């Protein structure tokens, strides 16, 4: 059964001067538990696709179903709640909040989830950081961490709420090969051990080949 289903999805960006069709009639199904890579040249629409799947952006036309929910019809607050409950994000630039320590950064999704007490949040944060080998840095600020450590914290943040889907936008793009390999290993573990569906945008052919499926993009279309 498809956990993510896109039907005839298009995205048109319009400014005063120009119109850009970032995605055109995309049909895509991703099964539960799959680890999918999306590849393509810069500007081909990969990140746009990821943003639409992550409910960070909306399609200009077509339908997007995630977990049997037509997410295109959701309002702003409902989208936020859906993201919080079901989706996790990992970004190329980590995007950790510099003024918060590791624990506070990882805790972020739980803060926006109702019914989770402070004690429960602390326990969940501790658990996920131990799992990712970052519990010894729990009080550190992001500026005190290496790139790999930052990305591990970002992954911890993405999975602390036990989402069903993790969307990763070039998660190893700012890391060296050794750290990149570590991060990929983490993502594979999540996929295999927790059954989390992972959708990853990448430029790295080697890393893409390790995933279950590669979707190639070109000029807003899926080519294979």
């Amino acid at each position: 059964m498809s956990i993510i289903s896109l039907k005839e999805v298009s995205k048109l960006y319009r400014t005063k001067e120009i119109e850009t069709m970032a995605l055109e009639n995309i049909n895509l199904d991703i099964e539960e538990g799959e680890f999918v890579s999306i590849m393509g040249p810069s500007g081909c629409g990969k990140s746009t696709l990821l943003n639409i799947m992550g409910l960070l952006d909306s399609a200009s036309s077509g339908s997007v179903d995630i977990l049997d929910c037509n997410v295109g019809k959701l309002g702003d607050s409902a989208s936020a709640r859906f993201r919080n409950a079901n989706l996790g994000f990992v970004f190329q630039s980590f995007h950790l909040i510099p003024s918060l320590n590791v624990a506070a950064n990882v805790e972020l999704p739980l803060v926006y989830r109702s019914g989770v007490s402070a004690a429960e949040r602390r326990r969940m944060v501790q658990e996920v950081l131990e799992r990712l080998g970052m519990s010894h840095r729990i009080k550190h600020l992001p500026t005190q961490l290496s790139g790999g450590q930052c990305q591990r914290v970002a992954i911890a943040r993405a999975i602390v709420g036990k989402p069903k889907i993790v969307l990763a936008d070039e998660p190893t793009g700012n890391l060296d090969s050794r750290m990149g390999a570590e991060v990929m290993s983490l993502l594979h573990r999540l996929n295999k051990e927790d059954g989390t569906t992972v959708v990853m945008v990448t430029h790295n052919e080697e890393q893409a080949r390790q995933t279950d499926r590669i979707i190639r993009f070109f000029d807003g279309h899926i080519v294979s």
Partner: protein
Amino acid sequence: MTMNSNKLRQLVYDLRHQPVVTWITLTGTALSVFLMMTVISMEQLYTMPFAPESNRPRLLFGQNMEVGFIGSQGSSSSALGYSPAEKLYRRLPGVEMEAMFQIESQNAEAEGSTGRPYEVKCRRVDHNFWKIYDHTLLEGRYFDSIECAAGTRMAVISQEMARNLFNNENVIGFEVLVGYVPYKVVGVVKNTSALARQASGDIFLPMSQATASSYQHGMLGNVSVVMLLEDGADKEKIRNEVKARYATLATELADQGMVPIYHEQPYDVGTVSRGGYGSNNSPDDSGYKRERMITYLILLLLPAINLSSMLHSRIRRRVSEFGIRRAFGCTRARLMGDIISENFVVTVLGALVGWLCSLVFLMSYSGLYQNGWGDIIGDTPALTMLLDWRLLLMLLGVCFILNIISASLPAWLASRVNTVEAINGRHTK
């Protein structure tokens, strides 16, 4: 608790990393609150209760009388004569008790056993005055109704006068000359602040029909009336009753060719303390309220524009963070609320500084306090008066309103930022 300590930590981080903007924000807030609290405190000193005027909220005043002359444009006005004061203000429904007194103290010369004359503030009051106002009697007693009615020459003096006139505080039975007329001291009261406009004084003498001045066929004189209302009494009802009594008085005076002119009396304590109107016209309360609202608006709105701009600047540095928060499930309303509540902490910090400055200013500059005619009262409030819970509540209110006015728009704009653009730091507005 963890969430709040994270928020505080984040706020401190944010403030420390933008020192110039932080200082501007704190200074602007402090300035605004300094002026607001100075203006509010000055105004509240007219109406908030403090000893010996602890009953201020329950007081009404019959202050003046104007009589017109039938068949002529002319009129005459001043305080009331004793007889019309009784006719208009005795035993009104809803009034627990009333006292005849001089609403403005008079300057007089007093001399005690030291032989050195002092210029004193002298006030004529009747026996009920001491029940309506809560002076602290240090020695002796007050004059009673019989002594008042008889015009007995007795005086209650302040502690300071006891020292000045007699070099002594045990002065019961001593003689004091007031304007060359001898009075026997029967009581000594604790010194009162001159800000207690209707109850303060150096020397209190009995007021009665016998001692009140009177002219214009007894209609005018030096008498005013203070009324202590029953709990829950309706002030408008009392005014209407007084208005009806004016009509009755008009009928009585018609034979003498006079007509009493009604000027919306009795007045509440705020109106009387602010003054600025004559005995022949009505106070302009609505004009005063309008002026006050404009003042508040200016003092809040202008700094709020600045503060809003500063908050906008601070927020722009965190736009990526807001994108991340939105990505992880923070709703727009929640984001707005977080920004406004964070800013409230900054507002309170600046406000505390401003408030402390206003306290120092209010307690040190006596030129702020004038009567309705622009004369300096010459006294400043005590710290205990300025720490009244009403003023503290108003301080909180000022912080809250200033925060809302200055933070709402930047917070709203931050919450409307496109999440993707924010995360990528492309949002530049």
